[in-house]
């Protein structure tokens, strides 16, 4: 490293407590908005959440039915592959465990599919046992469209690109199918604690 811009410090980059902030990350105060496309605007009366693929019967909930499901409020740390982390974020949503309650499947993987065409793949065991939710409130308020509202997937133990915005369902399968970023160099699994950002990491 040779040249240094005299007097340049950049934004304050707090690395935070190392037991909570994974390697290579820094803390932010705001909630950065990242997007691969225009914000979808599906009216709630047209919205549904579906479970499809390697299950007996596809299952579907309308928005009203979804809100009637038992929900949880949870506080989680989140970590984006673009290096920002945010601690103690508060969400409310339905546990994937709840959605999969009556589902019989031998599938080992799921692909989340979303309005706007975004997809991401997650092993089913990373969505169950209290590890993932479909969240519709953030910080006590309905989830902003720019942050994925009306509902987004929330899988806090993996890099946040796995927490798919504008999620409309999960497709269960035996194979791990690379999603939008996973098919373009990003790690299939994405564990922030092992810094699994890209293929080969």
């Amino acid at each position: 490293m040779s040249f240094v811009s005299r007097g340049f410090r950049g934004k304050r980059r707090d690395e935070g407590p190392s037991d909570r902030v994974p390697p290579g990350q820094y803390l932010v105060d705001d909630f950065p908005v990242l997007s691969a496309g225009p914000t979808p605007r599906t009216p709630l009366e047209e919205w549904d959440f579906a479970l499809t693929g390697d299950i007996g019967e596809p299952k579907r909930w309308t928005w009203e039915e979804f809100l009637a499901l038992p929900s949880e409020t949870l506080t989680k740390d989140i970590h984006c592959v673009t290096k920002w982390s945010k601690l103690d974020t508060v969400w409310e949503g339905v546990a994937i465990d709840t959605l999969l309650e009556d589902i019989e499947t031998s599938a080992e993987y799921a692909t989340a599919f979303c309005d706007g065409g975004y997809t991401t793949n997650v092993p089913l065991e990373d969505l169950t046992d209290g590890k993932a939710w479909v969240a519709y409130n953030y910080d006590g308020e309905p989830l902003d469209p720019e942050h994925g509202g009306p509902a987004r997937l929330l899988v806090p133990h993996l890099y946040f690109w796995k927490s798919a915005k504008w999620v409309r369902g999960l497709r269960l399968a035996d194979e791990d199918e690379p999603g939008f970023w996973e098919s373009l160099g990003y790690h299939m699994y994405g564990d922030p604690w092992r810094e699994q950002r890209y293929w080969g990491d």
Partner: protein
Amino acid sequence: MEEQDLKLDGNSAAGLFRELFSFELTTARGRCDNCGAVAEVGAVLVFANAPGSVLRCPQCESVLMRIAKNGERYWLDVRGITWLEIQA
């Protein structure tokens, strides 16, 4: 930040293109494989506030091209473009 602020155009990706191509890509014409619209790459929509850059058709907003980068390693997906016409 307003939503519109996240949307730029091919001009903003010109520097990235120069890392990858030996010709000027922003003046190349391409056909959107989804809707058939033809435009110069400089006029397509670019969403770069993301883990990668996503180029979208100005007519139908479908994905034309995606580029991700990690240091000296690049990934490129051009499936959304039927053809590119380049005046090199």
